[in-house]
């Protein structure tokens, strides 16, 4: 398994570049991104598809900033910082595009469990309701039965997907999926190298899928849960969390996080046990941990169930023998 975030940077004496963020000079190591420079300048940047332990795919576009001399805005998360860049992170253009990205997502997806995106949506004043009736609010004759036909004016198209509950480990609720590609990256080149899932279809119909939408146990999935750990919207969710939420008992604020080392093998993966009401409800690994980069295998991720259950049985999937 390769470590993610392998950048071409050398460890020793990296060259530094100085650029301007909102008029403030900042210096970062060469090879760092504009996002890192923004952070260094103390500017908070919204991100959805970026994660410290994944290769940037720069698809959500919520992190865009204005770069002097560039015709279009540029994604902070993947654009390498260059000496002399003049970056604005809070111009009218930047605020507009960020607001629209958030508004578009709000109009298309169920973001009720994407708390960070909801926070940013408030910050930027996103109003997904603008698309209800496709902008016909306040219009006369906007109901559209002008030619006497029986046109049902459908609301804005949304990502309409049933919740998939196939096993006890995690669920998939793709109506929440904003297509950030993080799960695909985590399952593929960036961590797991299992390639069980990919983006299928095109345009608005694009979805995260196994081949022919095969059930997970029939796919290549080895139930490492790495995709679940990186999902920013709750589209992928551990079954424990899903069940607790269903009964209104998911209380992140009441959860204690204990760091420990996985006892299954000698690799030394660090685990974070999320405990609520004296029960483990989730296991993660720190994204900056040198061994895991936040990624685990099925044993570390789900093997805790023996703590509570009389006899731990690994999930019955052929792929889980990995």
């Amino acid at each position: 398994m390769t470590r993610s975030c392998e950048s071409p940077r050398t460890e020793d004496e990296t060259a530094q570049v100085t650029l301007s963020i909102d008029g403030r000079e900042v210096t970062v190591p060469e090879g760092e991104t504009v996002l890192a420079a923004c952070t260094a300048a103390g500017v908070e940047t919204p991100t959805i598809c970026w994660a410290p332990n994944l290769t940037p795919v720069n698809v959500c576009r919520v992190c865009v900033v204005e770069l002097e001399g560039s015709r279009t805005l540029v994604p902070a998360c993947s654009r390498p910082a260059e000496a002399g860049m003049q970056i604005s992170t809070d111009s009218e253009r930047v605020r507009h595009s960020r607001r629209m990205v958030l508004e578009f997502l709000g109009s298309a997806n169920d973001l009720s469990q994407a708390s960070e995106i909801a926070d940013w949506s408030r910050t930027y004043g996103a109003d997904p309701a603008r698309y209800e009736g496709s902008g016909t609010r306040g219009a006369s004759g906007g109901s559209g039965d002008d030619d006497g036909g029986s046109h049902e004016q459908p609301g804005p198209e949304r990502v309409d997907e049933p919740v998939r509950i196939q096993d006890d480990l995690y669920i998939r609720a793709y109506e929440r999926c904003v297509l950030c590609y993080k799960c695909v990256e985590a399952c593929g080149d960036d961590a797991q190298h299992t390639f069980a899932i990919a983006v299928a279809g095109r345009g608005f119909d694009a979805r995260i899928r196994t081949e022919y939408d095969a059930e997970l146990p029939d796919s290549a999935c080895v139930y490492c849960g790495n995709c679940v750990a990186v999902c920013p919207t709750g589209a992928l969710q551990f079954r424990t969390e899903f069940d607790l939420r269903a009964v209104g008992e998911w209380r992140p604020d009441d959860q204690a996080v204990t760091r420990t080392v996985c006892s299954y093998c000698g690799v030394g993966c660090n685990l974070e046990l999320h405990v609520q009401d004296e029960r483990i409800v989730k296991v993660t690994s720190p994204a900056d941990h040198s061994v895991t980069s936040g990624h685990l295998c099925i044993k570390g991720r789900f093997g805790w169930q023996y703590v509570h259950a009389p006899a731990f049985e690994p999930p019955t999937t052929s792929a889980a023998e990995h």
Partner: protein
Amino acid sequence: MADLHFSDAEPTASERRAVLAALSVDEASDGAVVVSHPRVVRAGMQRRKRMRHQLLPALHALQREVGWISPGGLNFVGRTLGVPPAEAYGVATFYEMFRTEAPTHELSVRHVCVDPICALAGAAPLAEHLRSQGHAVHECPCLGQCERAPAVFIQGRREPDRVPADGSGPDSLLVSVTASTAEAPSLLRQMIGRDRGHSESMSMEAYRERGGGAALDAALRLGTDEVISQVTAAGLSGRGGAAFPTGIKWRAVADGGGPKHVVANIDESEPGTFKDRLLCELEPLAIIESIAVAGLTVGAEHGWIYIRGEYPLATQRLRQAIAQARGAGWLGDDAAGSGQPFDIELRRGAGAYICGEETALFNSLEGFRGEPRNKPPFPTTHGLFGRPTVVNNPETLLNVNEILRIGPEAYRSVGTEGSPGTKLFCLSGHVGRPGLYEAPFGMPLGELLGLAGGVQGTLTAVLLGGAAGSFVGPDAETLPLSLEDTRAAGTTLGSGPVMVFNDTAEMSAVIERLAKFFRDESCGQCVPCRVGTVRQHELVTHIRRAGGPTEPQRELLGDIADAMGDASICGLGHTAASAVLSAMRLGLLGDTA
């Protein structure tokens, strides 16, 4: 790479045969590719990548054989090429020409274009008629036959693909304003008035008699630096839509380290554009020669043709021309006696407008989904397979041949200071004589329309640059068709489509269709375009039904346009609102209530 996991689905014997025939692999070796193209090996790629670029040809083979990409067939392809099945499925579902559900019939499929020009010419009744005759019909975007609308393309089931109009009907009209003077650049000179179907005229001898081969000779004689400085001095800019200076691109790649690639972008899918199809059908050897000129000039070993899947005749003629060029020694280990290896491989697209975007094209060719890459880095340093790559439109490449033939001075004798040379314009819709017109840059729009027999009826609007372009009104007849003048007027020439609409066209229907085009063709990767094109189409649909936009709707369309233009990854999103906005400015969507 971890071992791949496949389901139990097995290919049928015919699926195996079809795939193996397409891949030149040896079944005895357990599916491992043994006879991959030699130069791919030289590229030094990892084995998986070496094989993966054959994914599209393999999927084409399955689709033709059984009418869909079955789970067993996909597994076989995935095992053979080392592609995980989820990823292969993701690729198969990206393209218009591939189905991933079992077909209910054994028929070849008639693709009927429903884009604006064909819609005006009766595409809907044609589709209905074909259905009533029991044909399988698939409605599709522009097929690049707008001069002979309505257009049909037949995707063959166990038979070759074909275009019915290729074997019947009159030849498409070619007109060139500059062809009569040998000292002026003209791409069409040798094509006009020739017996087109005649295989004799397609031979290497006949091509040489017409002056073929001179560009390659000149390129070898002059050498890299002199060729590039002539191209630069001639002021050649790309004809694929973005008008990037060709000399700068070639210089950058020539300066890069090997292995390098040259790609001819013949994906031609911009609605209203059909020039590349005609160029390839009429003078395929010139295209091959021009790719060799590019390759030997920048020091690339690998030439590629990426041609849209709906161009069977052009594909066949290019393949034949590649074979002829190999026979003549233009391609091979010592290409044209240069001492350098250079060869060309042809790949067919499978129905995706976005794959004309250069970085989407690379991904598609490499066997990945045709999703554009973020730029920078640019293709000149990180192109196909991550290597320095020249990607050019065939019209651009043929212009290099002309520059080498007459020299940069003579080349600049036509056109404007800012846009030297000629441009190919694809005239379609309500003009007297739709067809392919070559005119010097700077010719006023009205004069070009006059050349084409004038507007039929009363002009309402002209769509310049296709779906990604913008509408201009009747007052634009004096607009000089140069890069600088159209830019100053807030419009674009794009790749050269000129779609003419008179007062009988229902403009709101045309505009709704353009909005639908972008909704369908967005790759879906980035949020502004994936959702923005949908919202734009929904709005335009509402506006059309209501007879005009409300003020909030105007505002919302503007907001969507700004975000798509500013925050999208690629040119598709950047231009997806341009035609709609221009139409609204011209009042073509009705007046604000």
